[in-house]
């Protein structure tokens, strides 16, 4: 494999050096490319991190399909769909923010960042509502777990509560980990909003915006998979 560019030997002279350019990089392009590659690789590690959970989920869903379907149908798929739409809208506002930063449009940048934050908080709010409902119904794994329901499509067969508990364990760990990443994302975007307010995101230097955006889209992609897998099992039954 070969990179299409080899660093040119001329480094930037000290007097005209952009203060955002760190000392060990020769050019801003190199710094930008390094940051971008770094974030993509980090996202790769995140895919593998969630991937272990998806693998566990895959295996148990195949083993205990009926019980998983019963458990999944106690979730509110409309709230799940709403949350999916909320995140998709937030991804749109993120790309608008990146565009605005690249083109020097301050108002658009600030508005897009603020909207992204609002969408993110809305997502967490809806998730919180869902968690509370699960807590009230004793569907949180642990000492007070209780699950009495029939298997969808088999009205005379009760779902195995032990298997349903595995479903809920995975549900809470997967969506909880996702929510944790959302919180971190919101933190990152608050920081970006602050930087934008101070005028530090410009067409010449907007790398934090770009890589912050990559992180946010990744969290969106995880939810794009979580939603159908967790919420939409055998809804036709």
């Amino acid at each position, binding site marked *: 494999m070969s990179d299409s560019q080899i660093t040119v030997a001329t480094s930037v002279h000290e007097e005209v050096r952009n203060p955002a350019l760190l000392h060990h990089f020769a050019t801003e392009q190199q710094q930008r490319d390094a940051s971008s590659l770094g974030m993509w690789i980090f996202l790769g590690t995140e895919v593998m991190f969630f991937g272990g959970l998806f693998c566990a989920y895959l295996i148990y869903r195949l083993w205990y399909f009926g019980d998983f379907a019963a458990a999944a149908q106690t979730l509110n798929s409309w709230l799940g769909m709403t949350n999916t739409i909320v995140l998709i809208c937030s*991804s749109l506002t993120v790309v608008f923010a990146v565009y605005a930063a690249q083109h020097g449009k301050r108002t658009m940048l600030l508005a897009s960042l603020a909207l992204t934050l609002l969408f993110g908080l809305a997502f967490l709010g809806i998730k919180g509502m869902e968690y509370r409902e699960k807590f009230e119904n004793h569907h949180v794994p642990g000492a007070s777990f209780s699950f009495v329901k029939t298997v969808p499509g088999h009205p005379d067969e009760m779902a195995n509560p032990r298997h349903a508990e595995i479903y809920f364990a995975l549900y809470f760990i997967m969506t909880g980990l996702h929510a944790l990443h959302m919180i971190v994302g919101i933190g990152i975007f608050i920081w970006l909003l602050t930087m934008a307010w101070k005028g530090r995101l410009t067409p010449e230097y907007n790398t934090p915006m770009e890589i912050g955006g990559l992180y946010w889209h990744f969290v969106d992609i995880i939810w794009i998979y979580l939603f159908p897998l967790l919420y939409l099992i055998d809804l036709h039954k």
Partner: protein
Amino acid sequence: MTTDTKIEHSSSLGTYVLIWALLIIGTIATVVAAHIDLGPFNAAVALAIASTKALLVALFFMHIKGAHERLLKLVVVTTIFFLIILMALSMADYGTRYWS
């Protein structure tokens, strides 16, 4: 200092809105399809739609499409490959465990 700054080929705002619309449609389609009995294919359809949505986000929102080198695509493909390995080779065990 903009002379050597290569901005990733950015799509236009219109393209972004189009992708957004496709994602919303995909979401609705997923929910609708889940209410139709497709037998064993419900999961496959759901995953196919989800993967299409993920691809759209990655290609257009995360700018892989306009990336000027193949390295980023290699990172994505490699990661997905090893995730599939984890699941597929685990299934080599789980799928055959109860064959007598």
